[in-house]
């Protein structure tokens, strides 16, 4: 029999709790994932591959990668700036900045898309000017990028702010007194100290950038082969009763989620000593 401890519950209770937790996980996480894969491969690997290699699917995948390739670096830069500013300086409006960073989490994705339409759309604030100069923002790639950047900007900053605040500015000051310049201090002291947090932030930011549906849906215009990202493409195919096609693209997105989680766990495990060391210090 297991050793009895003060906080230990009776065996039936323990089993009940574990069953509930695992059951919940199975119904809400594992089952959908299995369903996606089952549907995607319902007509064999060949049909799956044909669905993915179609021109529109390839265009959607390409667009998703482009958007992520622009949005993620932008938000890494923004996240580093914001967390550096919050953690290392005192300035008026600091707490306002911290709360504003959370805004995309608390606002509906529809709004996140709609603001860009209201700003840059044909009836929008800057619409006429853009039209006059033959620039397209809404229903084009720039709009999708803007919406994605907006939705994903908290990820990196949220990871880094608590980390940098906890670490304080002592090490940077030490580097400066030892003769290091600002850039050198950033590269060899600040960045290495936050690299794991930064990496998690990037992974989460990337997953969300590729998976975002709501905000992107509002600004995209759903033009096949031009402004359809993968999530939008899944919806279109599904609405056209092309289940294999829809689930084939969806399986890629699901794969992305699994890979992201695996990468995060793997990194944590691989560098567990270093991570523990930098937390303990």
């Amino acid at each position: 029999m297991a050793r009895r401890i003060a906080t230990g519950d009776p065996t039936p209770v323990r089993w009940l709790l574990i069953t509930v937790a695992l059951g919940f996980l199975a119904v809400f996480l594992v089952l959908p994932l299995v369903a996606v894969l089952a549907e995607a491969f319902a007509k064999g690997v060949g049909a799956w591959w044909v669905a993915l290699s179609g021109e529109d699917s390839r265009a959607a995948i390409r667009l998703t990668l482009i958007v992520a390739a622009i949005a993620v670096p932008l938000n890494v830069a923004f996240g580093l700036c914001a967390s550096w500013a919050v953690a290392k300086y005192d300035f008026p409006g600091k707490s306002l900045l911290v709360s504003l960073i959370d805004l995309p989490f608390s606002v509906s994705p529809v709004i996140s898309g709609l603001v860009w339409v209201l700003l840059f759309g044909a009836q929008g604030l800057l619409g006429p000017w853009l039209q006059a100069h033959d620039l397209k923002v809404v229903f084009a790639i720039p709009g999708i990028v803007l919406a994605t950047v907006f939705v994903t900007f908290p990820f990196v900053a949220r990871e880094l702010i608590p980390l940098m605040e906890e670490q304080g500015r002592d090490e940077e000051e030490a580097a400066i007194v030892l003769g290091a310049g600002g850039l050198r201090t950033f590269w060899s002291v600040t960045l290495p100290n936050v690299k794991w947090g930064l990496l998690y932030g990037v992974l989460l930011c990337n997953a969300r950038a590729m998976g975002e549906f709501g905000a992107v849906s509002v600004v995209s215009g759903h033009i096949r082969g031009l402004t359809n990202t993968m999530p939008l493409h899944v919806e279109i195919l599904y609405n056209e009763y092309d289940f294999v096609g829809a689930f084939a693209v969806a399986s890629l997105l699901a794969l992305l989620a699994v890979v992201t989680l695996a990468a995060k766990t793997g990194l944590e495990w691989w560098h567990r000593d270093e991570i523990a060391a930098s937390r303990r210090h």
Partner: protein
Amino acid sequence: MISVERLVKRFGAFKALDDVSLTVPEGKLMALLGPSGSGKTTLLRCLAGLDHADSGDIRLDGVDAAALRAKDRRVGFVFQHYALFRHMTVADNVGFGLKVRKGKDRPPAHEIAERVGRLLELVQLAGLAGRYPSQLSGGQRQRVALARALAVEPRLLLLDEPFGALDAQVRKDLRRWLRRLHDDMGLTSVFVTHDQEEALELADEVVVMNKGRIEQIGSPAEIYDHPASPFVFQFLGNANRLDCLVRQGVGAFGGWSFAARGVPDGPGVAFVRPHDVEVGPADGAAMAATLRHAIVLGPTVRLELSLPDQTPFEAELGREAFSRLDVSPGHAVGLTPRRVAAFPTQG
């Protein structure tokens, strides 16, 4: 030589440094002593270039420090919590100041390695070059921080509460070791402390600070024997405070009078240290008092007494003297202060 002239530093309405001037003589070890909020750490940070004064001058070997950025001052700084680079090994920490140099100032890699090795030997950590800071004890981290600061051959070594985070025994050992190191290497150093014992034991010169101002500068003996103000007297150790009246250089408290040279007529304060008072039988002594408690502290006994007007008074004497005295709580004794320091009442 490092000189500071009329330094003023404000944080909002708070004056952290209020017209501070001092000189750090070449080759000396100077202590900035004061309670928290006295401005001592701010002064140290101004010397390092980590904070900037609102007005006043700092001169490093005759050069105006305002023209030099922190990174060009060649000042070594040991932080209170060491601030070691947590993701670098001990050797990389120590070598950092050399590696970040540019162009011809930067020594070749093998020379850096050699110097790091020598420094680690100097701080007795030669075997730990490959460790990370988190794998070291507090005392070892402290010594790595010191080696890192010394690597750039600083003209001035600054230490912020260098022993604050260590336990008592390690602190004592490190203190003596640091003093020897300072002398052997011919350093000019300034350290900040709130521990008067540490300042008096370690420093050649002590600067006592209070509320952003310098109360007194002098050798440990001068400071201890001739404190310039009631603050200094009280900060340097336990003291009994007696409100007295001074007339023509003579102070009076109760029925007892004492010399109060240089103190103007009027109300004053007199201080008597617990070990500067003789305790004898009740009759014929200068001050009558009643024993409340006797607490044995190793070789000495602390007596808690009260004077006729109920002012508490503390005295300290040897175990033997106490047993000769043969009194128990509630008994009357007579006090004869050996040394009294008197000051005019301020304000």
